[in-house]
């Protein structure tokens, strides 16, 4: 009768054999020897059936572990060999990229397409530039102060529930976050203008924002907004309403109008939600607009005196308005995209439609 199987020895043998393989061909051979159907490990497993339960349990456990070890070694070796082979190939076929001969790269292809969101953003920017706005941008990682505090949303304020926030493992807990709106750019702009003495401000601020919402047909966790800010002398709500109306007609077309209704945002007062004529039914009432003839587009209002106070602007000398809405939402409305998630699939057949 043969003695109990020395599992450790089997593993040690396999380790040596695997380490010795240095080509794919060698490796296939070694893999068959150490873990194939006729390998010593598999043979040993077959013998388990004829053992008494206790011994079987113990040996079974050892064999299972050995098998895992050998598989791990094999996978690591396979990756290493593959890496070495590819590296050798690359070394043998290194390119001098300055050896560029015009016309020898892959031939002409059909023109590519800007992402629909980019096209929408560009079109929106162009409308606002035509109306006298500059375009400003800011970072996507923000501090609590720029995203909330300076915008009159102090810590633990219930209004924070309006934005589901992604926080980052940076600094104090919940002190650094992914901006939930483009409004922090307003604060940066105003701070800079105060510092440089360059008020007034007439800017729009497009950019990427983040909210911790599970993506669905109408929402994405990562999305794009465009925001506008005017700070000047003598600016009133009438200017805000007029600006929204001019924009609406310029972007959506002359048949599309806007209306404002009261709303609450911590950073504007008075605040309003703005709606535009439903682009599907042109105001007649349809399913898209729930028979109202209007589609909600964004929020707006007069800059809250508390926001001016946080950036050091005298609210008796300067007044201002701000507005903001979703770029992706505009694209969805204009092109009747049933599911917003099509925007992030990057299916070339989708991208090429625009």
């Amino acid at each position: 009768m043969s003695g109990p199987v020395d599992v450790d020895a089997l593993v040690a043998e396999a380790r040596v054999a695997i380490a010795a393989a240095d080509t794919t061909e060698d490796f296939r051979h070694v893999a068959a020897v150490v873990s194939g159907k006729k390998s010593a490990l598999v043979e040993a497993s077959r013998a388990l059936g004829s053992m008494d339960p206790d011994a079987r349990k113990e040996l079974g456990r050892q064999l299972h572990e050995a098998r895992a070890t050998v598989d791990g070694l094999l996978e690591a070796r396979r990756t290493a060999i593959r890496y070495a082979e590819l590296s050798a190939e690359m070394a043998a076929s290194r390119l001098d990229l300055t050896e560029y001969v015009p016309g020898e790269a892959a031939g002409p292809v059909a023109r590519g397409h800007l992402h629909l969101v980019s096209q929408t953003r560009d079109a929106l920017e162009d409308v606002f530039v035509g109306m006298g706005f500059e375009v400003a941008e800011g970072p996507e990682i923000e501090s609590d102060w720029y995203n909330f505090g300076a915008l009159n949303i102090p810590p633990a304020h219930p209004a924070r529930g309006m934005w589901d926030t992604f926080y980052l493992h940076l600094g104090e807990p919940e002190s650094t976050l992914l901006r939930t709106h483009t409004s922090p750019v307003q604060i940066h702009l105003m701070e800079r203008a105060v510092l440089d003495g360059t008020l007034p401000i007439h800017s729009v601020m497009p950019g990427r924002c983040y909210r911790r919402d599970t993506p669905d047909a109408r929402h994405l966790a990562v999305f794009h907004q465009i925001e506008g800010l005017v700070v000047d002398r003598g600016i009133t709500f009438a200017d805000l309403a007029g600006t929204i109306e001019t924009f609406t007609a310029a972007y959506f077309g002359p048949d599309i109008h806007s209306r404002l209704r009261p709303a609450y945002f911590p950073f504007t007062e008075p605040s309003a939600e703005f709606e535009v004529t439903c682009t599907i039914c042109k105001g007649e009432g349809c399913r898209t607009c729930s028979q109202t003839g209007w589609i909600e587009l964004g929020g707006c209002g007069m800059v809250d005196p508390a926001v001016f106070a946080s950036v050091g602007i005298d609210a008796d000398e300067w007044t201002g308005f701000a507005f903001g809405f979703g770029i992706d939402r505009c694209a969805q409305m204009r092109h009747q995209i049933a599911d917003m998630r099509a925007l992030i699939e990057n299916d070339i057949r989708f991208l090429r439609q625009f």
Partner: protein
Amino acid sequence: MRVPLSWLRDFAPFEGDAAAIAATLDDLGLVVEGVEHVGEGLGDVVVARVEEIRPIDGADKIRLVVVSDGTGPVEVVCGAWNFAVGDLVPLAPVGSVLPGGFAIGKRKMKGVVSNGMLCSGPELRLGEDRGGILILDADGAVPGAKLTDVLGIEPDVVFDVAVEANRPDAWCMAGVARDLAARLELQFAVPSTPALLARVAPDAAGAAVPATGPAVATLTSVRVDDPDLCPRFTARVLTGVQVGDSPEWLARRLVAAGMRPINNVVDASNYVMLELGQPTHPYDLDQLAGGGLVIRRAGAGETVTTLDGVERMLGRPGPGLGDTGQDCLICDATGAPVGIGGIMGGATSEIGAGTTRVLLEAAYFVPMAIARTSKRLNLRTEASARFERGCDPAGIDRAAERFCELLALTGGSGLTLADGVLDVVGDVPTPLEVAVRPSRVNGLLGTAHTAAEIAGLLAPLGMEVRPTGGDDDPVEVVVPTFRPDIRPAPMGEADLAEEVARTYGYARLPRRHPAWPQPGRLTPYQRERRRIKDVLCGLGASEAWTAAFVTEADQLAAGFAPPYVEITNPLVDAERFLRSSMAPGLVQAVLYNADRRQGDVRLFEVGSVFRLPEIPDGDGPLAVEEERLCAVFAGEGDDAWSAVAAWRTVADALGLVGWTMEQGPRRGGGARVSHEFRSAALVGPPARGRARRVVLGEVGELDPTFVETSGLVGTDGRPRRVGWLDLDLATVLDPDEARRKPLESAPISRFPSSDFDLAFVVHDEVPAGTVEATLQVAGGELLESVQLFDVYRGESLGPATRSLAYRLRFCASDRTLTDDEIGGLRSACITAVEQSHGATLR
């Protein structure tokens, strides 16, 4: 919030159709998200008795039912089986129109004529499906009676109103009615309980005034240890209470408003909250140890089991910013917790069938404290939502009194209300005085309201107004405590300007297109970023939008070692890092398309990538965020050369000059997804007097190991060759960083140019770019262009060498170059290349 129009009419005589009222509510900022018509279209439906049920030949799903509607037998065909002869059921006779516009006509089924329809609950919009026809068991249900009379249904409209977070006052029927009445110029008043009863249940017996019992202090006690969390706490005690059902009208109102009736005590509390916005909490006094309440701050780690059966730990700050861990506990007189103040009661003192003595709590909690506790516990209730926004500390008594009066209707003949109120008052908000300057209101709104007009618009909202003089003098406004959204001046002026605008009507505010002298424009960076994207499109690349959230494996594959910028609360746990490279996302996008038989693609993306600073700097940013342009060229025949061609086109479009390619191991290491033997760093010369070289990005081909691991494998089983371009836009698009062509134009020569070709055999180690640079110098000012046009490798040339053939074009601005001059230039070029690079002319 569900708001029945019939309930609103308690407060003011609202007329007009539902659509007009909904539009008015919208325009007040009380956004109507839905309008539900209930009990309409039932006018013709009558009660009928089932007299006979007969099968129909050839039909096994429908039967002929003979009913009597009080006037005679009616034969109807019916598909429901849940009733029997003798049952009372609703009959919609021929000619009636059911809710939703469903007209009932004579119909023939299987040769049998049906003279009407027996109706189910949902068909009448009366509750849920009970498995067939609605069977009536109400009093007064006799054949021929009108269904609406039997069920006491009146047509009503329920608005689903979204109340803004800053308007706790509007989060009740009275609040909505107050705004609506102000706009419609109707008188608003909260009815007394007898007046209310006269409206809702004119025939009902029962007095709404409980008898007075012994002094409340003899029955219970209240002690507030921490008035900073609970500035006002009142307790009333009702004894001899019989717990039972609420009055029919009250239960029906709760249902219409979306709440489930439970018993007369709980219902009265809920009714008061819905009507007046003040949450109250009834306790079973006999279940309170020591027979009284203590209101105090929770000790660190103290636990309480709330009504929902969950044990909750309190008194410790959570991770949230600004959370101080200060929680308000309601305890019995022995100090044992019986509930979390303003959020949820505990199970032990809940009202039960056997409750006879009720202690009613009506209190004011500090909003921010409720918000903190509610957020940390993730426990939001009707009460907490109202308290955290700010209830009216002055509205407590009216609400508590209403509760007692309502409970008196059904609370039993022995019901008595203990004399007096235990009322612990600390530092509660008081009415605010704000001086409103008409100039400020008009300056914000663009209107021309006088002081009197402003006062007239604010008064109906419950504001006390006192004009102080002329049209332009300030209006003194006393803001009631139910409007915590109005702040002290100067902010309060803007808040009140909004109130003026709301009552006046946003739609009526003027519109003006503003103008200013400053021009609108894109920055040069923004213009050129657009140009670069257009160039990429022209090269056949489409723009992608790939995931910003990536896995550790993605980061490692892109050559970035941890640590990374990490999200504390990711949506998907594995995807908890902000991307440091767009390469994994773009390769996955190529794969996505390849899986859909669209493998032949070029994609690019402009977006932010993130990493931690190499050397943490206390004052510097916590994370580095860069806007980059990345492109993958994975089309048919694409490889590094596609990317090189793209880069050269981009550089040309932007007018970038002087850049070079640094091949081989990357200086300073750093992450890379490209392979060192097939890529180059793009390096700019020091621009505008700067000493250091600038790295613009890299160009080349993705590392095949990365490509293979990503699963992008060709039909031959080998990793696909993917050209790669990665540009740091902040550098590339900054004229102070990446050198541009000079602004000054160079005159074009009117004289003909001369070409000659030179082919050199050059060792593989010598980059073609350096040979070209040598030719540029040797050719001097007369050299118009130099172009590599052929690369040849062959055994005849010797090992590790290749032939590089250049076409050089010369031109002078003031003359035609002579053969001698050309000859001299040719010799100079040959000598320079031979000497500098050990090359030989071929």
